[in-house]
């Protein structure tokens, strides 16, 4: 706390000194205020909210003068909007300075003290980041220096403690990362020195992260310093790119990996090819015991040090976001392929205004692993054997998606899509007995411009859902039904069965968005839960100011209304949101 006061005062002294000397520094920032009212709604299983109205808000203030910048963020959770971790607001709500930093940058040096967000390589050993709309913020608090010592070589060093809501976690995080751009580096030895043909690029990188946390466990012999490293390379030639990263973490037993003393490993390979009109991307990712946190006791998204994104497509159409895959850090192997093609204008399929087609396929499996039967170590045990790059028997997720976008005339455009997906609900949502979901979704969107600034947009989507049972051995089976045809196994939760969705939106550029949408869970097994989730929104935009008022029942997921996408938690009631940049 003392250091915070000291830091803040020094920060303001520096700012005022600079302001006096120069008078031409700039102050900028942004803010967002979200207010949500909660009506009781036992049918959708809405949580009882005694406060009835809740609000999240933040304001960023950044000062920049030449190479110097500094900033703070004030945040309030009074109390936090549902869907955010209850740790934000605590019992009585919370507000305060959640982020402050001072930074100096020039061509060779970049030093930050205070809070910072950093990523090494693809983030598999270190990524601190914020997603304000989701309530995620694992910023480090400490010091970071980035040095470009010679052309083509950049070194980053960090020391810090990680943010955990309005506190910091118990672990100390240290890290160093280097990146070498081969062609640029060779220019140090002369302008004409080159290894590769013109336009080809080669890059190497590597990083080390170490976390220190005291071992207070009475039984286990826990490592106090947990080391993780990565090595990576990228090669590019014309339209082709290959990116590979391997990461390793020493044993790091904790609750989330059932105290295993196995080390962790991860491999990520991505290859892409593109030419005008064509984009192809293929990726492979394998993970084994890669949950990495700055505290062994932390759960869920708190104090996570690395980032292991899903190798699945990130959807935005409403029904496609109902069952999104979540990475399994303890073990998975996945593949994804994505092809985008735009037919040339004037060709038979391209028509006068062009047509795009996008196909995506992803598949994620378990990794093969079995308990190590020779393991009898009571203080450094729980070992297992695994074949790192082999596809295990259990299918976690797969989906195939095709989307076609066509502009028919100057005023009329359509998007059509189809998706077939398998989603192992009991594993992904940690709900044993809920089996798996096989779904087929059709999406359609029609955009028609009435005048140059007035546009109407319709969306119609249908999702047909089949609930699948998964037996003790992980085998996929038909659901068990009673004499009346109702499902007994798997266990179903409130949202089950098939859905239909419709949206109408009217926009007057550049200021107004009016939209109404309804999701109808017509296929719910429980006839009393065949509910309509009707919702309406009016949005006003003036430059960077955005004001949105809504009312309705909203199911959780990524919501794209009013030209902006953001993740929104489930709710029933009024919502108000104001944001701006200044």
């Amino acid at each position: 706390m003392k250091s915070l006061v000291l830091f803040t005062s020094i920060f303001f002294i520096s700012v005022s000194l600079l302001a006096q000397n120069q008078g031409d520094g700039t102050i900028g920032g942004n803010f967002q205020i979200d207010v949500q009212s909660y009506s009781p709604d036992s049918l959708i299983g809405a949580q009882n909210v005694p406060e009835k109205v809740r609000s999240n808000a933040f304001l960023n203030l950044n000062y920049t003068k030449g190479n110097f910048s500094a900033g703070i963020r004030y945040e309030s959770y009074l109390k936090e909007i549902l869907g955010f971790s209850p740790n934000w607001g605590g019992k009585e709500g919370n507000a305060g300075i959640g982020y402050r930093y001072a930074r100096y940058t020039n061509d060779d040096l970049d030093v930050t003290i205070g809070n910072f967000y950093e990523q090494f390589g693809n983030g598999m050993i270190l990524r601190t980041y914020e997603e304000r709309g989701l309530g995620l913020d694992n910023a480090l608090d400490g010091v970071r220096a980035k040095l470009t010592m010679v052309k083509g070589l950049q070194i980053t060093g960090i020391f810090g403690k990680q943010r955990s809501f309005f506190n910091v976690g118990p672990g100390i995080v240290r890290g160093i990362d280097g990146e070498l751009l081969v062609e640029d580096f060779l220019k140090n030895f002369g302008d004409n020195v080159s290894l590769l043909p013109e336009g080809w690029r080669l890059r190497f990188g590597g990083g080390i992260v170490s976390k220190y946390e005291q071992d207070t466990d009475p039984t286990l012999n826990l490592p106090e310093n947990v080391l993780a490293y990565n090595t990576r390379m990228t090669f590019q030639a014309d339209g082709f790119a290959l990116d590979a990263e391997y990461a390793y973490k020493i044993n790091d037993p904790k609750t989330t990996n059932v105290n295993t003393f196995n080390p962790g490993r991860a491999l990520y390979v991505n290859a892409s090819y593109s030419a005008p009109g064509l984009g192809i991307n293929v990726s492979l990712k394998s993970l084994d015991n890669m949950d990495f946190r700055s505290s062994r006791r932390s759960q869920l998204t708190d104090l996570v040090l690395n980032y292991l994104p899903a190798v699945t497509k990130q959807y935005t159409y409403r029904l496609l976001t109902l069952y999104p895959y979540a990475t399994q850090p303890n073990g998975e192997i996945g593949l994804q392929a994505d092809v985008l093609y735009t037919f040339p204008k004037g060709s038979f399929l391209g028509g006068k205004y062009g047509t795009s087609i996008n196909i995506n396929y992803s598949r994620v499996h378990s990794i093969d692993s079995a308990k190590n039967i020779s393991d009898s170590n009571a203080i450094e045990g729980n070992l297992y054997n695994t074949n790192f790059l082999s596809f295990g028997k259990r299918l976690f997720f797969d989906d195939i998606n095709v989307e076609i976008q066509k502009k028919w005339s100057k005023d009329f455009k359509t998007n059509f899509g189809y998706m077939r997906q398998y989603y192992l609900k009991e594993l992904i949502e940690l709900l044993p007995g809920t089996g798996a979901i096989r779904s087929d979704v059709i999406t359609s969107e029609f955009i028609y411009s009435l005048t140059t600034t007035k546009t109407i947009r319709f969306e119609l989507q249908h999702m047909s859902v089949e609930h699948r049972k998964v037996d003790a051995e992980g085998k996929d089976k038909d659901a068990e039904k009673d004499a009346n045809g109702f499902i007994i196994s798997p266990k179903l939760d409130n949202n089950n069965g098939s859905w239909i969705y419709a949206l109408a939106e009217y926009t007057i550029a550049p200021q107004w968005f009016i939209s109404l949408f309804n999701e109808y869970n017509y296929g719910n097994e429980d006839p009393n839960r065949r509910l309509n989730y009707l919702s309406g929104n009016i949005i006003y935009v003036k430059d960077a100011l955005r004001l949105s008022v809504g009312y309705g029942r909203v199911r959780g997921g990524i919501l794209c209304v009013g030209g902006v996408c953001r993740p929104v938690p489930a709710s029933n009631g009024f919502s108000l949101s104001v944001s701006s940049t200044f």
Partner: protein
Amino acid sequence: MRTMFLSLSLMILSLCCLSEMHAQDNAKQVIPSASIKNIKGEKVNSGTITNDGKPILLNFWATWCKPCIQELSNLSSLYDEWKETTGVKIVAVSVDDVRNSAKVAPFVNGKRWEYEVYLDENGDLKRAMNVNNVPHSFLIDGNGKVVWQHNSYAPGDEEKLYEVLKQVAAGQEVTGH
């Protein structure tokens, strides 16, 4: 910890003084300095992006954001004309994180977009420009002044933008936005 903060703060302070001496070198800088990547994935300082004194349209977008794609697709068919009449350069900064950032280059090529594209995987430039949500566009004049900005996209927004852009290109005061 306290002494560390004190000494570091003093260090930053002294560096600030240094920065004043270099301030003149940065007179031409039009976009704040942040660590972003070019389309090849190589780290670059956003402060080095210029358009020789002509306007820049800085657009923040993501591959998962439908209105963003709609906006950039619509601008794509106008870009040649706008370049000719106003000299504008469109800089499209993707805020996709590593889940999708490798797909940005094939995506941009697959869409036949001809923008200068950068990756802001960890939101450094997004924070420096105080962006809340995407799409968010800034029209920056040759002196680095943000003369117009707009959050969200509705078809037809480009009409207004073009009006403002023509004023900026002609060196006029931007009015009525």
